[in-house]
């Protein structure tokens, strides 16, 4: 009986909320009235990385900090700031880590060179096949 009660209580138990005491920021889940501004805010939010749910963009994440970052992006876009300036402002704070858009820094060179290398390998493979067939 005690055990059944314990299990019943376990089932009823609620997780301790780790959410804050305030509702989401005004522009966190609300579109800007100007569709062009909203589209450019949206495009930027999809390329910014959530600091909490790392691996998600702030457009996808349900974390509260991501909501506050969406609010920040929409406010600045609505104030006329360019998306590239907002991205640069965030990179200044969190490093290139925060942006999904690859940069030209040395660490990203393999990323840019890999497609070229793969194309060269492909050409070489095709050439060697053609050469094999040639004698027939």
């Amino acid at each position, binding site marked *: 009986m005690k055990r059944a009660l314990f299990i019943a209580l376990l089932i009823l138990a609620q997780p*301790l909320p*780790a959410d804050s005491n305030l509702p989401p920021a005004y522009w966190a889940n609300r579109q800007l009235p100007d569709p062009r501004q909203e589209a450019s805010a949206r495009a930027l939010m999809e390329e910014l990385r959530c*600091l*909490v749910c790392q691996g998600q963009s702030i457009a996808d994440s349900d974390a509260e*900090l991501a909501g*506050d970052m969406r609010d*920040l992006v929409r406010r600045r876009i609505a104030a006329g700031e360019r998306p590239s300036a907002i991205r640069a402002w965030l990179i200044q*704070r969190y490093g290139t880590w925060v942006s999904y858009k690859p940069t030209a820094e040395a660490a990203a060179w393999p990323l840019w060179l890999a497609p070229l290398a793969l194309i060269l390998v492909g050409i070489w493979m095709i050439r060697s096949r053609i050469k094999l067939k040639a004698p027939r």
Partner: protein
Amino acid sequence: MSRGLRLIPIILLISVVVGFAWRIVRPPDPAVPSQLISRPLPQFALPAALPAKPGLKSADLATGEPRLLNVFASWCVPCADEAEVLGELRQRGVKIDAIAIRDTPMAISAFLARHGDPYDRIGADARSSVQISLGSSGVPETFVIDGRGVMRHQYLGPLTQANIPGVLQQLDEAR
């Protein structure tokens, strides 16, 4: 195809498996440190989080003596853990200001009544906007600020007893 070429896929496979195994054994550090370290704090001015205590603006953190800036929230469980350590630092004469993230006056005063209040000033950051401008990525975080308002060090996550000597030394060096 020559023998050497045939080995290429196997070598590739092995290196991929080794790469995965290495990252499982040694996972990357998920902490995102602020890039503003050893640079002046950005300008900000936050309203008071409690009626009885002043709010916080960036000029308050450049008063000629080093201070700690604690980013906390009453809804943050590790912050409650850290409160004891901040209280001890306060007892040793360390000046501590705070930014309360997404919080209400009632919840903050209940939190401080329960865990102690080491703060001189508390600014209310309802939309985390100042937190983002500092390059802080969560709660709790603690910054060592020197007398000129330059961010010297950042602690991501709760301070522990073991951090106390280091924090005191960094404050001393920031003088």
